[in-house]
């Protein structure tokens, strides 16, 4: 079976700050990593390959320097990696992003399953998987925590308000994998050396995908960012409770007690 996995390379959340004066993002020195939920999607893809055979193809959109980050999925067991890179892809919101990724899936051809992480850690919309499914006219299962193939269909457990449901989807299908639902495997040491030195990431631009300027990137986006604001963290007392174990416990009880009155 042919499994495509869409991954996003994001700056490490802790490394990103807002410049208090210019209100621009300060990402200098921020480490670029594969989005956490997408690592779970990759692991789900590799598990599907372990169980059913076939190949895993990783797709990502971003600047050429992200080729390096796509060696990791190869070292983990993916068979191929494609970077969608073109200046015209820049500044895309979820609409052109899902179109660009869907176009790559279409160009790869005959994919049975398209896996994504539930959302990215930077913009965190969770809207891209459904968008990809719509462009490709495939069924979608989002927030899946367990993905299997049974009798030629995808059977997934997915999270819903207050619980879970098990659904069955015909193939091909787009499935978004819930963050933290599995533990991504470590890269294979020998494979890693091969990936780092020999493996070539395939790079596709807008012409390879047959996309026009006005449907991709910033031009193809429907939304724009007006400004960035720092989320207001509340004033806190930052009081340090010290003393022996007994004294600390006593102080905690004193702080907590007033909240229990009337309960």
């Amino acid at each position, binding site marked *: 079976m042919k499994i495509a996995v869409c991954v996003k390379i994001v700056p490490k959340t802790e490394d990103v700050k*807002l410049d208090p004066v210019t209100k621009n*993002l300060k990402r200098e020195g921020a480490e670029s990593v594969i989005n956490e939920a997408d690592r779970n999607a990759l692991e789900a893809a590799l598990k599907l390959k372990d169980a059913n055979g076939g190949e895993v193809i990783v797709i990502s959109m971003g600047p050429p320097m992200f080729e390096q980050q796509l060696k990791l999925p190869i070292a983990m067991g993916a068979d191929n990696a494609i970077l969608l890179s073109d200046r015209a892809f820049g500044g895309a*919101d*979820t*609409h052109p992003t*899902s179109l660009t990724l869907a176009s790559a899936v279409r160009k790869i051809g005959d994919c049975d399953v398209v896996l994504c992480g539930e*959302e990215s850690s930077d*913009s*965190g*919309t*969770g*809207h891209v998987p*459904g*968008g990809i*499914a719509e*462009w490709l006219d495939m*069924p*979608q*299962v*989002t*927030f899946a925590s367990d993905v299997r193939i049974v009798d030629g269909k995808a059977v997934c457990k*997915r*999270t*819903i*308000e*207050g*619980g*879970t*449901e098990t*659904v*069955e*989807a015909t193939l091909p*299908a787009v499935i978004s994998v819930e*963050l933290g*639902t599995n533990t991504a495997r470590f890269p294979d040491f020998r494979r890693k050396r091969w990936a780092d030195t020999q493996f070539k990431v395939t790079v596709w631009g807008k012409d390879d995908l047959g996309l026009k300027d006005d449907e991709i990137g910033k031009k193809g*986006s*429907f*939304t*724009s*960012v007006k400004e*960035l*604001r*720092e*989320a*207001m*963290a509340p004033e*806190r*007392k*930052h*009081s*340090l*409770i010290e003393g022996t*174990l007994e004294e*600390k416990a006593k102080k*905690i*009880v004193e*702080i*907590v007690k007033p*909240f229990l009155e009337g*309960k």
Partner: protein
Amino acid sequence: MSDIFVYIEHNNGRTEDVSFEILGKAKELAAKLNAAVCGIIIGDSVGNLADDVSRRGADKVYVAEDRLLEKYSTELYTKVVEDIVNARKPSMLLIGATYNGRDLAGRLAVRLHAGLTANAVSLEIEDGTNLLLAAVPSYGGSIHAVCKSERGLQMSTVRAGVFKPFPSGGKGAGEIITIVPNVSAKPRVRVIESSVGKKADVGKAEIVVVAGLGAMGNLVAVEELRKELGAELGVTRPLADKGLATRDRQVGSTGVSVKSKLTVVLGASGASHFVSGIDSSGTVISINTDPKAPISSHADYNVIEDCNKLLPLVIKGLRPGK
């Protein structure tokens, strides 16, 4: 037309609170635009929900019923909302940022070629343009990107627990309009079984006890403290990942924001995606072994201690007669 449409989500015969919260906010936005607020209810035998939706702020309620629509289906529900929107051309469509809400919104926005902003924690009308400004939490919630859609339908998913709903009392004056949905195609996704319990209301609790990795070794003591305080249990993401608590108890940007008067955080270091979930809480007490952990700058009281050692003494101190 500049009407604001609100997708009303319901589960097991109950309207989700987030839909009422959005209606309350939509009413305020609509007043600025001199527009109407319209609710969309989709399902099977759901007409009984329409009155309440009207009382909570909808000027009109569209009810689309069919046996095929009994359970949420991405494909069928997308089609029904698409038809309603295309026939009536609202300026905005707001959807609760629940699991199914985001599932629907992502697909629908591409179908309708609409601008979609995500998980809004603030909604305003921009002066001069009358466009919707949505504050979207990014990078674990530490930064809000204020976004707008400049062409076509303006869609946004809206975070639960942010806006205040109108009370349910009184009589709704809204018009209720029945729609015969055009659904015939068999959906390609079928629900085999579902297991839904009573949803934990961590977001509304007055006192919340949050267990992090450092408290994982002694969840019995955590539970005892929770009982003594009459609190709801919350957990950090790793504990939900391990299946030790359901996702509706996960606190943080990918889970619930607590708005409690008191939050006791046990053994959590304070990852940025977590602390944004407790920043709306009143008093925060943190018990944690690492004095340098980021949680300390988000707490009112910091206790540097192993909570496994400290909890039994705190619980003893809280018991009556002590």
